């Protein structure tokens, strides 16, 4: 399925190289880089689309960023796009990581490398947290309303950090209930204005053929 987007990769190679660059910049996770590059700079995703796709990537099994690449690639260029995005993310970085593993197999024995890694991990923790904070405004368009969405964010925080609830329970429990509530809200929507805001929340709707035909 090949769809045109106002902004998006121009061809499979563009996709491959863009994701290669993302992979090469990602230390301790690629998510923050993806948000920076694809949402803020290239604008291949709106923040709302990004949250939606990231939600799906996180809920499905498998590495999250790879799932995101598969979804994004296949939406633009079908199977070829999915393969281009994921090989881009992994091919060159895997050559790098395997070379390092072969040369410096015992990085954990080296105290300087260990402290450097600790410093990097603290930076990465801040990066991931900031990415979460940056996505909060995108919840304003959520059909459940901004206030309830914020409560759900807090509830998730407390469940994970205070009650140490496993991820699967959080997603199935809180996620399940909020999905039911969102379904109820979506069905109640009748006025045209709210319909519009609900439609704009739907990422896929933006990549429709109608959009492509408008200049």
């Amino acid at each position, binding site marked *: 399925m090949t769809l045109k987007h106002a902004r998006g990769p121009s061809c499979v190679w563009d996709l491959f190289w863009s994701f290669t660059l993302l992979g090469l910049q990602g230390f301790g996770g690629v998510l923050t880089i993806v948000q920076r590059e694809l949402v803020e700079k290239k604008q291949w995703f709106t923040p709302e689309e990004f949250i939606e796709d990231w939600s799906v990537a996180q809920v499905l*099994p498998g590495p999250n960023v790879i799932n995101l690449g598969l979804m994004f690639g296949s939406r633009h260029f079908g199977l070829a796009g999915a393969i281009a995005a994921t090989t881009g993310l992994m091919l060159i970085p895997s050559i790098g990581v395997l070379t390092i*593993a072969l040369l410096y197999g015992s990085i954990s024995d080296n105290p300087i490398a260990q402290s450097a890694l600790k410093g990097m991990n603290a930076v990465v923790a801040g990066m991931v947290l900031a990415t*979460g904070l940056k996505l909060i405004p995108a919840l304003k368009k959520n059909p459940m309303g901004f206030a309830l969405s914020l409560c759900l964010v807090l509830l998730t925080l407390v469940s994970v950090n205070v009650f140490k609830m496993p991820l699967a329970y959080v997603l199935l429990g809180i996620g399940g209930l909020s999905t039911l509530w969102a379904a109820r809200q979506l069905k109640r929507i009748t006025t045209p204005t709210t319909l519009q805001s609900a439609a704009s929340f739907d990422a896929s709707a933006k990549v429709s053929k109608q959009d492509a035909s408008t200049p």
Partner: protein
Amino acid sequence: MTLTISDWLALFLHFSADSLLAVGGAISAAPEMHRFLVQEHHWLDDATFANSITVAQAAPGPNVLFVAVMGLNVGLVASGGLHSGWQSLGYALLAAFVCMMGMLLPSGVLTLVITNWAHKNRELTAVKAFKAGVAPIVVGLLVSTGYVLNSHNNHWSHDWPLWLVALISTLLVWKTKIHLLWLLASGAALGALGLLQA
């Protein structure tokens, strides 16, 4: 010690199962990998296992590449290590490839099938409700992950510099457009210079 055909198959199938278990990221299947590779088959020892994760974290790329490093180490151990000749390198790379394919194929196929279905049915209330319902949870999980990544540094009097670094990094990423590689390099440099131990 070399790997038999059935060992190769077991390796592939094990990572295929992990692939489908790994909700929330590849690392969530790490305990299961430890049970299989270290406890059950003794293909890796504890140190090499932990090391594989650390090395992959220190190098650029998606976190899931730690699976390739584990495969590489399984191959190296099984073939007697690099000093036993070039075929050992080939063996190690093959093992890395087999483990990675196991880790990626099942979840990848599942993701493509489900997201294509969801895209075709994007006007269904169920699909819209799911995306809207899960979005706040996922934002909450990101903020939590940021916290969890640093929460093992729980000796406040000793670890406060790490929390300060995390806080500064949060503010800089949130409010400025500073390139992330500068932040990572600064964190690594501060750590290597020993400035993060109070």
